[in-house]
């Protein structure tokens, strides 16, 4: 990793320079003479004028200011930062696949559609659901589709009062935000000291207004919801449906299926469990799976098969569909990468993923406990991730979870998720994934131990971390108050960009 500050690309720009070999031939002024003057642009946009080499060098240098899975251990809890196999990328980028227009006729696309159809089938198999639609473009959009289907289902039965979505207090922020986007009201239920949903509170919360419950299992607390069947019975008995947030599917892949636990609808984060790249924050893909009673409401388009031919299923075929969530079919290239990954894992590989992810997490839990850290749920098995709480260290040493996180960066390790779930004070949510070796885990434990020692002896080294990154801790308050969201060519926003 580089620590050299790279100036904004606009500061390399020189009028009249450009990567001309990449441009088309100049068609001449006559090419656009038919465009009316009133509808034309008059001032050029602020785009850099640089050579190809200058651009390549600039963006390569920027890349070197990042941590990534390819370069660093990245135990970001709840995000499943596993290795992204290179073949998944190169095979999804075969020229024919890249060139295919989304509105091409079905006759030109039987190869692509076969992959999509088989992906739907494999996702049905691993989730235990009856039907799968691939189009949601991220986990949050999958959640949206799921809750929208639950609403559509109740509405189709004339059950118009059901607008409450129950979420455990430890839920991801997207769950309540999704419920609101679907026009629902959120009701939170507490979690008991062992990390399971408080069944009595749940029983008190459900009723004739219950549309459904959104659950992650294993939960965001890194433990399996042991009374899931009772949760399902309670919600179903009240007339509600169960939504499964697939964020933690990596923990149970090939071991237990959401469909068998009683869930009616799920989304799967392909960018987590099925190893498509996170890309600096997207693209993801959030296919949804449903039980038979929700199948009529799935988002379109889907891929069907008529005889030997694959075809699109649209509003005409699924008239009660909640509709289209995107311009075309969603993140096809992400779906292809997940398809390739799943074919490489195969039947045997699916369970190996969850086994080794769980082994790695429990090993880290054991070793961190030995090193003097406090497990949030010491009497529980870890799933594919674990939580340690640093409340004691924060009180005794004045060093917070955020300080540990930042100091880990100096050790060349990406920080775990901090301060989530909100239930556990000063927590680190750590997810090593199955693709990390024992040596990488040992190095992490060693780094944590070293930081703990340092926190006692020289706490300001920890509270002042990071020290070896391109920048030190940033002023977030200034960022939000003195908004600087675009580069300006003048000296008006004169923050020095080099030092």
């Amino acid at each position, binding site marked *: 990793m580089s620590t050299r500050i790279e100036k904004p690309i606009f500061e390399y720009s020189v009028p009249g320079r450009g990567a001309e070999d990449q441009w088309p031939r100049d068609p001449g002024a006559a090419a656009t003479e038919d465009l009316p003057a009133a509808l034309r642009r008059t001032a050029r946009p602020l785009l850099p004028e640089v050579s190809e080499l200058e651009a390549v060098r600039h963006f390569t240098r*920027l890349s070197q200011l990042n941590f990534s899975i390819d370069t660093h251990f990245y135990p970001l809890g709840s995000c499943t930062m596993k290795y992204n196999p290179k073949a998944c990328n190169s095979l999804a980028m075969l020229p024919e696949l890249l060139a295919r227009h989304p509105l091409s006729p079905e006759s030109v696309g039987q190869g692509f559609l076969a*992959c999509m159809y088989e992906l739907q089938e494999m996702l049905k198999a691993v989730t235990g659901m009856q039907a799968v639609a691939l189009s949601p473009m991220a986990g949050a959009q999958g959640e949206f589709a799921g809750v929208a289907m639950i609403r559509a289902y109740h509405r189709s039965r004339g059950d118009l009062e059901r607008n409450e979505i129950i979420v455990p207090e430890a839920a991801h922020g997207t769950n309540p935000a999704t419920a609101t986007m679907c026009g629902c009201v959120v009701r939170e239920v507490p979690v008991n000291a062992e990390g399971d949903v408080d069944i009595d509170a749940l029983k008190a919360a459900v009723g004739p207004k219950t549309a459904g419950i959104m659950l992650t299992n294993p939960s965001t607390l890194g433990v399996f919801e042991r009374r899931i069947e009772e949760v399902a019975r309670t919600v179903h008995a009240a007339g509600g449906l169960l939504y499964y947030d697939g964020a933690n599917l990596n923990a149970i892949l090939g071991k237990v299926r959401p469909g068998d636990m009683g869930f009616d609808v799920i989304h799967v984060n392909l960018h987590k469990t099925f190893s498509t790249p996170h890309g*600096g924050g997207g693209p993801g893909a959030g296919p949804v799976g449903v039980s038979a009673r929700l199948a009529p409401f799935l988002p379109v388009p889907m891929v069907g098969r008529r005889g030997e031919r694959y075809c699109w299923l649209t509003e005409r075929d699924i008239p009660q569909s909640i509709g289209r969530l995107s311009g075309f079919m969603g993140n096809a290239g992400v779906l292809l990468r997940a398809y390739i990954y799943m074919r490489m894992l195969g039947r045997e590989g*699916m369970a190996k993923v969850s086994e080794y992810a769980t082994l790695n997490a429990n090993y880290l839990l*054991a070793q961190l406990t030995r090193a003097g850290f406090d497990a949030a749920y010491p009497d529980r098995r870890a799933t594919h991730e674990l939580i340690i709480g640093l409340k004691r260290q924060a009180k005794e040493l004045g060093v917070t979870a955020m300080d540990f996180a930042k100091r880990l960066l100096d050790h060349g390790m*990406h920080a775990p998720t901090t301060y989530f779930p909100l239930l556990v004070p000063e927590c680190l949510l750590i997810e090593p994934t*199955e693709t990390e070796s024992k040596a990488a885990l040992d190095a992490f434990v060693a780094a944590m131990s070293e930081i703990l020692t340092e926190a006692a002896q020289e706490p300001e080294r920890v509270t002042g971390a990071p020290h070896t990154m391109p920048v030190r801790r940033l002023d977030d308050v200034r960022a939000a108050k003195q908004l600087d969201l675009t580069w300006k060519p003048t000296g008006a926003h004169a923050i020095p960009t080099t030092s």
Partner: protein
Amino acid sequence: MAFIPHTREDVEAMLAAIGVDSIEQLFDEIPANLRLSALAGVPEALSEMEIGRLMAERARLDGRPLCFIGAGAYEHHIPAAVWAIATRGEFYSAYTPYQAEASQGTLQLLYEYQTMMASLTDMAVSNASLYDGASAMGEACLMAVRANRKSRSRRILVPTTVHPHYRRAAAAVAGNQGLVFEELPYCTEEGCIPPGSLGRYDGQDITALVIQQPNFFGRLEDVDALCDWARARNILVIAVVNPTSLAVLKPPGQWGSQDANKGADIAVGEGQPLGVPLSSGGPYFGFMTARMEHVRQMPGRIVGRTVDVAGRAGFTLTLQAREQHIRRAKATSNICTNQGLLVTAATVYLSLMGPAGLERVAAASHARTRELVAALSRVAGVRRLFRGPVFHEEAIALDRPVAPVLEKLAARGIIGGLDLTEHYPELGPALLVCATETKTTADIERYAGALAECLREARAA
């Protein structure tokens, strides 16, 4: 298999450290009756070589036909450097830049992207992207409801010249929150919205007006008159634009004829033309820019420049109080990720193009479309459908039903355009065609020749 590095010795040492006998024991909290015994429905594993061969066969099946469809996704040349950079592991395999100090590369790139998109659309601020153009329009409608505090109706006027899939996606994304989408009919001779037709809404409470430029038919709307009408009535203007077109067309920030009160409020669109391959529809990215006064109503990530404790400039996610991980049920959207990797590609693309290169792409694409429409119009049984200016896409009428003709063309390796019959049956047999800078005169002649043959065959049949 499964990309797992553990040796048998590793596993044994780890199990001993945990204090269990087997990996299986780690799953003992899962009720036994729920445990899966076998995973039917997933085929056996393939090696890298085997999956490589399978994918090559699938790809070969689809081939590389000559494509003349646009309709929201455009085949432009993508410089080799674009994806060479975007697939570098440091960009490809990083996550959302929550740890700013270890993500300055992604953050600075997003800041540069925001600068480029704000300037291209001539708006004050840009977010760090949304999923795609269609869903971005839905988010823009929701944002307009939050931003237009003078309106209580949640009524959004959407011309039928807006991409039909965008209209459906907006309804699906925003419809659950009580938004009412009202369709504005278009003029079937002109293929665009007559500004005079808005008069019937005078005096009514309307939250926002959506204007797509160029519209779905490639026709140029009278954006100045439409924008003037809306701004005079406190109706927010949501522009849906093709980013390539903005190298030559008036950007949304300049729409309107009154200097003191001009410009759209929110601009959104499909970012795909900026260095993103067609790839059967995604992943693409939606862009969104807006007036500064609306910045706190924007959905999605936003990057800001600030200083670190040593006073050096650095970049961070900002205005996070809008977002789901802080605001939960009160967030501006449930959106979590953006389309970071595609934004990386687009930022490299825009840097290689610069203002002059992008203008050439726009002009060359437009010139090829004019050449295409001229060539097709010379074919017996083909005519231009609308009068008036277009940008790099146009609707043509055929004297025979479109679908069988397209099938015949596909059999000749040509994807002839998009059949408009499904979404616009009132137009009769009509086809939306597009060419970009990637097409040559020979390609166009090949298409025109094949179309003449196919129409002859259709008439003979």
